[in-house]
């Protein structure tokens, strides 16, 4: 394998694609709230998070395409791979559900991304270092927003707490993957420590039970297929269109 197949000079393609696919599918789920948010201000906040995640996905896809040097582009990677070629974390493709479930997914994924991006703080690869530092800022903003809502729901009314507890149950099968996902150059152990610390602090403030990690692993493959069918349909119908 030639050295140029590494993304940013250090990341194996599989790792870069896992990060990019996770960003893209999560961003698409967030974008589904556009025009449907509980208030226009929240709508804008979710859309901003989605745009940040799409920006990260684009940077990673571009870097992967460059490393491949085979005519791939960010668009071929996003729109012309089949669903089973995507290697996102499963939680990213799960359908939105209600606002508590959307908030909890954002809480988990932003905490995970903080641990990932901050894990690259000491890399010697300059491009990756710059990209990770920028992305960590966006992840911390998203975590603050999601954490604020998790506390309001958990420590709010009977209804809001019940919804948060339901969201916790629904997403529990996807937590294990957040704790043990392998990424080269970023040990799972230190990432899961950082992840748990953030989540535990938030749940304590929200008066929720500590993070419960099931042994089962949920699948969101069917939801991903439906999402990609919709997301990719326009590009596949008009492959030469420009906009």
């Amino acid at each position, binding site marked *: 394998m030639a050295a140029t197949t590494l993304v940013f000079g250090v990341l194996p393609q599989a790792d870069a694609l896992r990060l990019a696919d996770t960003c893209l599918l999560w961003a698409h789920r967030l974008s589904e709230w556009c025009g449907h948010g509980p*208030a226009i*201000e*929240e709508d*804008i*906040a979710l859309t*901003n998070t989605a745009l940040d995640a799409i920006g990260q996905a684009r940077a990673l896809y571009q870097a992967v395409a460059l490393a491949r040097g085979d005519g791939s582009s960010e668009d071929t990677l996003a729109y012309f791979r089949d669903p089973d070629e995507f290697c996102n974390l499963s939680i990213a493709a799960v359908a939105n559900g209600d606002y508590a479930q959307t908030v909890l997914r954002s809480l988990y994924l932003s905490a995970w991304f903080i641990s990932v991006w901050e894990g690259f703080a000491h890399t010697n690869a300059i491009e990756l270092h710059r990209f990770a530092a920028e992305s960590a800022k966006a992840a911390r*903003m998203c975590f*603050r*927003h999601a954490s*604020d809502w998790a506390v*309001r729901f958990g420590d709010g009314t009977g209804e809001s707490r019940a919804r948060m507890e339901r969201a916790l149950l629904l997403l529990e099968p996807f937590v294990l993957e957040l704790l043990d996902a392998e990424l080269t150059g970023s040990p799972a152990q230190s990432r899961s420590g950082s992840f748990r610390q953030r989540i535990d602090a938030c749940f304590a403030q929200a008066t929720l039970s500590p993070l419960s990690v099931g042994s089962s692993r949920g699948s969101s493959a069917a939801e991903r297929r439906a999402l990609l069918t919709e997301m990719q349909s326009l590009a596949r119908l008009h492959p030469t269109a420009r906009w």
Partner: protein
Amino acid sequence: MSQVHDQNSGNDWPLFEVFVRSKQGLDHKHVGSLHAADDTHAISLARDVYTRRQEGVSIWVVPAASITASAPEQKSDNFDPMANKIYRHPTFYDIPDEIGHM
């Protein structure tokens, strides 16, 4: 005097007025308003709604209900320029050249 009231009665969240300081050393300027559950939430939303394009270095939010405004019907009594009352305008002083434009 009159209180500034939230016109949007269908929304349970109170209205906040948002002020952004664009650069160190300048003053905070009113940029708009938003609905939020409380002051912390208002700051968080203000950042998303009003400062995504490097508009600012600092944000203030103020509950709109805390603002007391002059009554619109007193506008002319309060603010008409009274141009005929020349003694209200300091036009009889010569400004030394060194002072420049005031």
